[in-house]
């Protein structure tokens, strides 16, 4: 864990929250092993060993034989920072529990399957930079109106309007806070563009949200 991390105690990420991705994968999700599309938000954790900061170099992952992996990808999300304890809140009040907003980049192995928890792909050391800072909630009138972009070496590779999310920020806070009581400083990465962006060693990755900031990281191993 990076000691300067902005995350307190928990970073919950929401997978498969891009409506276009859900539509594109609908037939696959009706087959084995999934059998039917998800009926609830699909959640995963980036645990404490993954937490990192603005400007950090991201380690290139190794496989189980100690060799560099062939490919890595990055996704970026709005990070919703909980401002006060949130236990079983309704979506109509959910945004009152938000203390601020930031950006979460999720570096990982490519998402090949959603069937089992993806510990190997998602739990890489230092793979979850969060930042560059936390913007207070009052400065963002409508979090669902934001657009998340990813640029690699200065070239835009991904643009994800949060209006394309299957579930809104408030709806996610409602659902997640009925599973677990959320504490101040815990962060929810509410949604990633379905197409994760391939990255290479030495790449400079900039995840940006207008009004929230730009989170810059470099891939190591070059």
């Amino acid at each position, binding site marked *: 864990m990076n000691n300067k991390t902005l995350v307190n105690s*928990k970073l919950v990420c929401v997978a498969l929250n891009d409506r276009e991705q859900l539509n594109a994968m609908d037939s696959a999700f009706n087959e084995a092993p999934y059998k039917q599309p998800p009926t*609830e938000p699909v959640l995963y954790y980036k*645990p404490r060993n*993954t937490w990192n900061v603005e400007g950090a170099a991201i380690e290139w992952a190794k496989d*189980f034989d100690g060799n560099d992996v062939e490919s890595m990808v990055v996704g970026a999300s709005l990070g919703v920072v909980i401002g006060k304890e949130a236990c079983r809140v309704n979506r109509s009040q959910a945004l009152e529990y938000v203390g601020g907003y930031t950006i979460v980049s999720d570096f990982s192995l490519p998402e090949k399957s959603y069937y089992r928890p993806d510990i190997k792909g998602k739990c890489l050391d230092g793979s979850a930079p969060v930042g560059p800072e936390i913007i207070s909630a009052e400065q963002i009138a409508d979090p669902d109106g934001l657009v998340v972009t990813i640029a690699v070496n200065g070239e835009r590779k991904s643009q994800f309007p949060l209006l394309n999310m299957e579930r809104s920020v408030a709806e996610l806070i409602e659902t997640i806070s009925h*599973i*677990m009581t959320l504490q101040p400083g815990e962060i929810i990465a509410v949604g990633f563009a379905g197409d994760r962006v391939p990255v290479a060693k030495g790449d400079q990755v900039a995840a940006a949200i207008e009004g929230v900031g730009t989170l810059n990281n470099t891939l190591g191993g070059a």
Partner: protein
Amino acid sequence: MRRARIVFQGNELDITIDANDIIRTSAGDVVDVSLESDQITWLPPVKVPGTIFALGLNYADHATELAFEPPKEPLVFIKHANTLTGHKQVSYRPDGIEFQHYECELVAVIGKTGKNIKREDAMEYVAGYTVCNDFAIRDYLENYYRPNLRVKSRDSLLPMGPWIVDAADVADVSNLRLTTTVNGEVTQDGSTKDMIFDIPFLVEYLSKIMTLNPGDIIATGTPHGVVDMQPGDTVVCSIENICSLETRMVSEQEYYGDRY
């Protein structure tokens, strides 16, 4: 030595318990109370819990019970401290479900930082052992990141303790009897010798993926014999030479009270 965290006479204490059941504070003062006393409130025994790794389908007989082939690679999922509660505390049954069951599990607590730990060195990284009950709610399972957070990340559904036994005091952790009773009746009777992926394997496996740190917790899975739990039931998960963990089931409304 055994190590625990309790609240006693209004004070939160880190305690040790010796072979004669004498309780001492971290300052060395004797706490004059019996381990069985209702004056003790047991807290989860890991003071600063880190990442909690839990194993699914890590006993062949339980995998078969759930109609799965035993896995060729560990099925690992992550939990956080919101799920933890202590010995003789309550866990809740969500409203409107059909099947919630206990999972009595041996827990290894990591004591030092390591990455790429070799199997033969793995036990040096384990500070001690305890017992947990990694409750599951089968109604909430979906085939996405299964078992999902809706099943495995709920408040109070990972009782742990009452204490951690120092690793040095456990002769052979791979051959311990594991039993569960519900309202006094034995419902699960297995042995840690039937684990598919043992603790050295798991430490090596996880540390190939990521750095393990002190306070990280590995819950190693449960054997055959799980039954439905209802509010009012008392479940006791026991592992020979480690400890017995008692939990009382309550309804969702009773658990959340004013926040329900």
